[in-house]
């Protein structure tokens, strides 16, 4: 619409706001907005200032962009970046694929559905610490149940968490194991909200089970898919809890991700530096997510 057209509409619009009660009022934003702004936004913006300081929590000393320069000099930053992308993309992709597959399975009429739903969700219930310890033990190179089992069939299992190139992928698998339950419940909710009429129509139209999945379930659970992708990708690019409890970024630095590098700086008391790192990581994730979600949401409106 041209500016001129906008101008012409202006008086009418004003007259309207005077009388028409907006069906979708902004006041609905207020409670959430206030809590979010006060508890999250204000401290966050305040902290951005500290990214420009050398900060020990007790003193802060303005040093301009020094922290950013230092952050980009981190010796293992590039590897951390690569690991971050691998971790974020692969956990998110696996959660989407497995979550959807499980949700389809668990919304179909199979026996023991309740049990299966509970079992798959079980890992979500356990804290990262618990999961970390369990899998560190199971993946122990000599004593761990995995390698012990492999041994009985004659395979010499690798050091899942001690082999530098493998550690990251081992953590990825555990992260998916732990997180797929959430993706699954979101997909289950998504599939539950698809009216059954469409399946009926498709069955009449001659769609096989597979075709029903690809042509009906998949497109119509798009809102769920978009949500799972958004949540798991941001989560994957940002989290490090599991990496931290399982490998501590190691062996050495081989499974470090950007977030764990930042966390280590934070732990070391380099508060300004780690805040700068957080700003960088935030921008990095935004660079991936903003275009992605804009694109996904634009297509969503069309449904």
């Amino acid at each position, binding site marked *: 619409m041209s500016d001129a057209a906008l101008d012409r509409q202006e008086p009418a619009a004003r007259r309207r706001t005077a009388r028409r009660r907006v069906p979708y*009022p902004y006041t609905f934003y207020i409670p959430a907005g206030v809590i979010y702004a006060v508890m999250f936004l204000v401290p966050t913006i305040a902290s951005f200032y500290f990214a420009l300081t050398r900060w020990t929590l007790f003193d802060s000393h303005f040093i301009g962009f020094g922290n950013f320069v230092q952050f980009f000099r981190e010796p293992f930053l590039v590897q951390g970046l690569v690991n971050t992308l691998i971790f974020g993309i692969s956990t998110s992709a696996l959660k989407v694929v497995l979550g959807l597959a499980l949700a389809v399975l668990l*919304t179909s009429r199979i026996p023991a559905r309740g049990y299966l739903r*509970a*079992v798959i969700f079980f890992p979500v219930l356990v804290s990262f610490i618990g999961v970390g310890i369990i899998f560190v033990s199971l993946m122990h190179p000599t004593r761990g149940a995995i390698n012990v089992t492999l041994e009985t069939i004659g395979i010499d299992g690798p050091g899942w968490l001690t082999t530098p190139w493998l550690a990251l992928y081992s953590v990825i698998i555990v992260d998916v194991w732990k997180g797929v339950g959430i993706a699954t419940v979101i997909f289950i909710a998504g599939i539950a*909200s698809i009216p059954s009429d469409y399946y009926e129509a498709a069955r009449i139209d001659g769609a096989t089970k597979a075709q029903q999945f690809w042509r009906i379930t998949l497109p119509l659970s798009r809102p769920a898919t978009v949500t799972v992708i958004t949540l798991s990708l941001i989560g994957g690019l940002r989290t490090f809890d599991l990496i931290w409890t399982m490998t501590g970024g190691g062996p050495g630095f081989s499974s470090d991700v950007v977030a764990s590098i930042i966390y280590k700086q934070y732990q070391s008391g380099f508060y300004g530096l780690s805040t700068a790192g957080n700003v960088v990581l935030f921008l990095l994730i935004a660079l991936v997510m903003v275009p992605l979600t804009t694109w996904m949401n634009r297509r969503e409106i069309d449904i």
Partner: protein
Amino acid sequence: MSQTHTTFRAAEARRRWIGGAVAILVTGVVFVLPFLFALLQASKTQADASTLSFSWPTEWQLWSNLVAVIQVRDYQLLLAFFNSTVITVASVTGLVVFASMVGYILQRRQSRWNGLINFLVLAGLMIPPAVVPTIWLLQQLELFKTLHGMVLIEIAYNLSFSILLYRAFVATIPRELDEAARMDGAKPWQTFFRVIFPLLKPVTVTNIVVQSIAIFNDFVNPLYYLPGKDNVTVQLTLYNFQSQFETQYNLLFSNVLLVTIPPLIVFVFFNRQIVAGMTAGAVKG
């Protein structure tokens, strides 16, 4: 009933049973074995558990381990259960109500603010919270070390997740229902709470399940914002048994198992509430 009839249905049923059996087996290995492992460790003595091997306990002492965990530090675990439950219930209630309201408007009303709001929602997921400034703020508001302060923090930190979830699912509710309610004279909040919100039940359940578990299991935030012995929350109790130099794995796992029970109850209870076909029969088209 004819022959083909029975055989067809029988074949179908058999397929389903085989599928189910395979699913149970696979999930058994993938999802249940690790917990069996945890259970075994929780049943061992400390020395026995320290090797963390997948072996039978030399001596079963699950019960005494559980009792020990509950009794430690003056029944701290019970207090922790209480605190965590209060925080969880209050925060999840707030989250569900506030986030669904935002998700509803955000999906329904296209305006030039949407870009900004969507970005803020994403920002809530992308930016890690700033601990120290938040503490200063809480101190200013006299909310530091209080349960309600903690509740507000949990709401603020988890809002984005819930909003995203709600926004996506509002799209599945036909707009005609809003319109019908408007015609019936419903004010916006009535439209929302009496028509839309009940239809969002599957997402609300999902939200309750996921968020209550996340908040119940939250470790970092209570650690910083809710210090003090009286304010202990469940995840903090794990640190009674795990330290840099020494970990009592048998008790740690007993504790892990104990604190997993409430979320499990929440899940089992709410999972049944995710029902299909909420909007069936509403409109034709």
